[in-house]
């Protein structure tokens, strides 16, 4: 289970740097950005399956955060706030472009060419690749819930609100996501944890 004390300490630290940012101290924003940039960028890549698009959306996310910084509720998690903006940007992009989320085969095709895997030891690298592949094979709605929960740490009730569905629907999608990821990992030779 997630350690609540760690979460609260994290929130407190974020608030300090957020206040510095608002006062115009460059250290404030750069600390926050360095802390969350990889997670946000990874999320956008998984959502879009397109690195170039993810780069554009990454910039749009932070520019939007800057414009709306004065409306940020300081009692809220900064990471959840960034994820909410990034998620909205990704969804809006697809809505405007009238592009449907890629189906399973398209996602599998795109993985090798567009996903950058950082340099790690061989076994970890292999598992990481396989997990990413498995996530990209998910139905888009299942993928969305899974990424918002596991990468963004967003509460299920907030995920349901963001996606415009009842909480039971969000929970159902998450259960299916977990089941399908495990099935895909087993197909690729990863059994259990």
């Amino acid at each position, binding site marked *: 289970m997630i350690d609540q004390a760690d979460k609260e300490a994290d929130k407190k630290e974020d608030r300090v740097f957020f206040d510095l940012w608002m006062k115009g101290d460059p250290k404030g924003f750069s600390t926050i950005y360095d802390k969350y940039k990889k997670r946000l960028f*990874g999320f956008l*890549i998984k959502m879009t399956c397109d690195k170039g698009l993810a780069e554009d959306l990454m910039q749009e996310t932070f*520019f939007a*955060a800057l414009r709306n910084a004065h409306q940020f509720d300081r009692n809220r998690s900064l990471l959840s706030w960034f994820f909410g903006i990034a998620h909205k940007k990704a969804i809006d992009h697809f809505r405007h472009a009238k592009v449907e989320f890629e189906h399973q085969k398209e996602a599998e095709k795109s993985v090798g060419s567009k996903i950058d895997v950082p340099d790690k030891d061989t076994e970890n690298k292999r598992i990481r690749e396989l997990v990413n592949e498995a996530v990209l094979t998910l139905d888009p709605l299942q993928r969305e819930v899974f990424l918002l929960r596991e990468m963004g740490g967003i*509460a299920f009730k907030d995920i349901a609100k963001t996606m415009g569905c009842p909480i039971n629907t969000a929970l159902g999608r*998450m259960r299916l996501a977990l089941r399908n*990821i495990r099935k895909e*990992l087993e197909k690729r030779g990863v059994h259990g944890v």
Partner: protein
Amino acid sequence: MVCNQWDEKGLLFSANELNDTDFAEYKAHIETCEFCKKELDVYNKEKITLFAPAMFEEAPPASVDEEIIRVCSNPVKPTATTFFIPAFIKNTIYAILVLTVGFGGGTYFMGVRIASKAKKQDSNIVKNETTPVESEIAGKTVDIASNQDQINDSLRSNDTLIKRENEIPIKGAIPVELKNE
């Protein structure tokens, strides 16, 4: 054996989103339910290994980092000439100003129009000059009047005639007293 309690509460329990009562109930439940206990254990392990955020993180290119830091490091500050008012209050004030100016301006112009129209009507009543049409009508009225006078005169003369005829004794009847001797 599948337990539907996992479907209903398991994930929420794991995310610490259950209220105190449900949390305590489910915690007691997993002590006795093998299925829920197993599911919870597997999921908790996956969260720190396979599903840890680091598994999905990707570093953005340096050019993207530079641009974002360049633009976002200094937040927009309120200037001396602008007030820091929440957006919705500002918009409400603007809307009220627009409505007031629009309504006031419209009322003023309507009033000016009505006043000028009334003034025009008053000045028409006071003037003695008639319009050409009115003169023409006036002339014809006079003509009619003079004609009527003539007609009346003739009628009066006819009346006199009739009266005289009535007074005139029977034709041929000459009152001659001498005729009877």
